[in-house]
């Protein structure tokens, strides 16, 4: 039944791209899934499980494995790995996209385009007062994810030692209109709190401090858990100003606490980096004549067959990306039916 219809081009194979293409395939549409990396799964494939003492914390990271496990069953989805899109041309009906990658050059026709190009974790070098590149034991939360996933314990880049005191700094690159990020990234409080819980589970003596503005809801049982979280960790409702190397290899900060400026230092510091537009965004905006949302992400042009799904459209959790992907499938199909 699918043969007579145009295919749908899905760009990006993270949670949103995988979910959207499967949703479309299940509803009888052929998809061409293009991924620039060498494997499917996007960012989430690199995240750690955040269960604490055998209890799931609903981070959703393992959902990408679940999606990948089910992904094998779809002949309707044609996958191009290590492939980029050089050009997209609008035709009288649909589009022609020029693919360039592992399988050489190839022009494909499609009836609609779903951009699921995801996000870029905020690069802390952009916020230079963090002195990210000159402080060895300051890492991003993305790096911590990989550490926990691959090594199960945190270690200090400078000497491989396990840190006894760790500080998380929230809102790094989020809620930052000056740098073009006038939004809460929605996921950072969730992943930071969950990873902090996991760290304490793995190494109970670890002392963890949070620098934060407002803790954003994560998960539904937040109201029940907030009280105990306040006892588990040290909470400083401030964002530090200066960041520096202290005592040779520790991370020092100057911060206002109780109406006084103090210097605090930690074995390791984790920056809870937010979600920002990908480097490719501008290319796609130009290729498809798309405008930008007030939060700085791509806006779709659904009347003309271009859809933006998942975190390519703005910060979004794994959970919301899956919902968004399903919702987009409905809109894409409505468009395809209308165009037919």
């Amino acid at each position: 039944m699918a043969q007579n219809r145009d295919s749908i081009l899905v760009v990006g194979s993270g949670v949103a791209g995988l979910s959207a293409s499967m949703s479309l395939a299940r509803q009888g549409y052929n998809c061409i899934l293009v991924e620039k990396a060498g494997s499917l799964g996007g960012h989430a494939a690199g995240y750690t499980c955040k269960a604490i003492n055998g209890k799931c914390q609903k981070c959703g990271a393992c959902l990408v494995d679940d999606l990948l496990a089910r992904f094998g069953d779809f002949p309707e989805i044609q996958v191009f790995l290590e492939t980029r899109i050089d050009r997209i041309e609008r035709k009288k009906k649909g589009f022609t996209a020029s693919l360039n990658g592992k399988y050489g050059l190839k022009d494909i026709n499609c009836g609609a385009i779903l951009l699921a190009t995801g996000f870029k974790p905020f690069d802390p070098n952009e916020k230079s007062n963090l002195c990210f590149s000159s402080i060895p034991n300051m890492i991003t939360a993305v790096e911590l994810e990989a550490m926990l996933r691959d090594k199960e314990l945190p270690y200090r880049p400078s000497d491989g030692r396990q840190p006894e005191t760790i500080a998380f700094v929230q809102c790094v690159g989020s809620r930052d209109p000056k740098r073009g990020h006038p939004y809460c990234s929605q996921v950072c409080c969730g992943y930071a709190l969950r990873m902090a819980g996991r760290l304490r589970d793995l190494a109970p003596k670890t002392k963890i401090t949070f620098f934060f503005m407002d803790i954003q809801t994560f998960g539904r049982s937040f109201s029940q858990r907030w009280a105990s979280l306040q006892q588990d960790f040290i909470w400083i409702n401030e964002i530090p100003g200066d960041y520096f190397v202290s005592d040779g290899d520790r991370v020092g900060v100057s911060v206002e606490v109780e109406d006084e400026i103090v210097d605090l230092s930690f074995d390791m510091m984790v920056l809870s980096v937010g979600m920002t537009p990908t480097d490719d965004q501008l290319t796609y905006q130009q290729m498809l004549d798309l405008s930008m949302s007030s939060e700085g992400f791509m806006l779709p042009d659904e009347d003309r067959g271009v859809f933006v799904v998942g975190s390519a459209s703005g910060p979004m959790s794994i959970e919301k990306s899956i919902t968004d992907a399903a919702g987009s499938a409905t809109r894409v199909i409505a468009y395809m039916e209308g165009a037919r």
Partner: protein
Amino acid sequence: MKYALFLGCTIPARSRNYEMSSRAVAAKLGIEFQDQMDFCCCGFPIKASDEHAATLLAARNLALAEEMNLEICTLCSACTAMLAEVAHKLRYDEGFREEINKDLAAIGRQVKGTARVRHFARILLEDIGVENIHRSVTVDLKGFPVAVHYGCHYLKPSYIYEGGEDPEAARSLDALIAAAGAKSISYIRKKFCCGGSVLVADEKTALGMAKEKLDQVQAAGGRSMVVVCPFCSVMYDDNQKSIESAFNVSYQIPVLYLPQVLGLAMGMDRKTLGLNMNVVKTRKITEDILGAE
């Protein structure tokens, strides 16, 4: 390479060592300074009480530079920021330019908005280059440990300095110091302000701010400080004794102007560089580097 040298108020009266060493180093590197007797105060000292008046003074200086058809080279960071800020506004804000020109008309001048302002250190780095400076070095400073102090207005507010460097990760002075063969040490609070601007309102706070930095320089093993602004020099050099007695500490850290260090590396003598005018004695440094004269 010719620039209109803007000395401002403080340097010609109180920091002749800075002026002497700058002129000497500039001459050595083939930089020609055109003096302009009619430059007035940059405007900075009056900005706090009347920003418009300050702006007018800056604009008048810029008008003179435009007439000379030369870029302004500043030595004082406060002058740099004051002039650059107004130059920036004049260049991009037409309404502002018209308004200023109305006032300037009273003295028969006008600005086009083409004036450019750069600090001497930046000219050294950008127009002469680290390589050329290094080539002029004749005396081995043997990696003498120096604590570089950028100060504030040399870098900030960053938006007025087009193509300037990131104030949170400034490298220019470190690069110049390295080119001279000295070693720029790293120390905590390197980005902190000297406190000079607070002196007029609250001496204790101002001295406390300078102390913060001297403490860190001392802790990090800095044997001298290098500055590019007479106000910073006032705080660290002229006031070092006051800080020592007010807070019961002891530093005796010589504070040199950047061109003084460069001049030493280029083989210039103490007199040429005005090193005897620095308040904290610099003799020990020059002996260490040059041997007893």
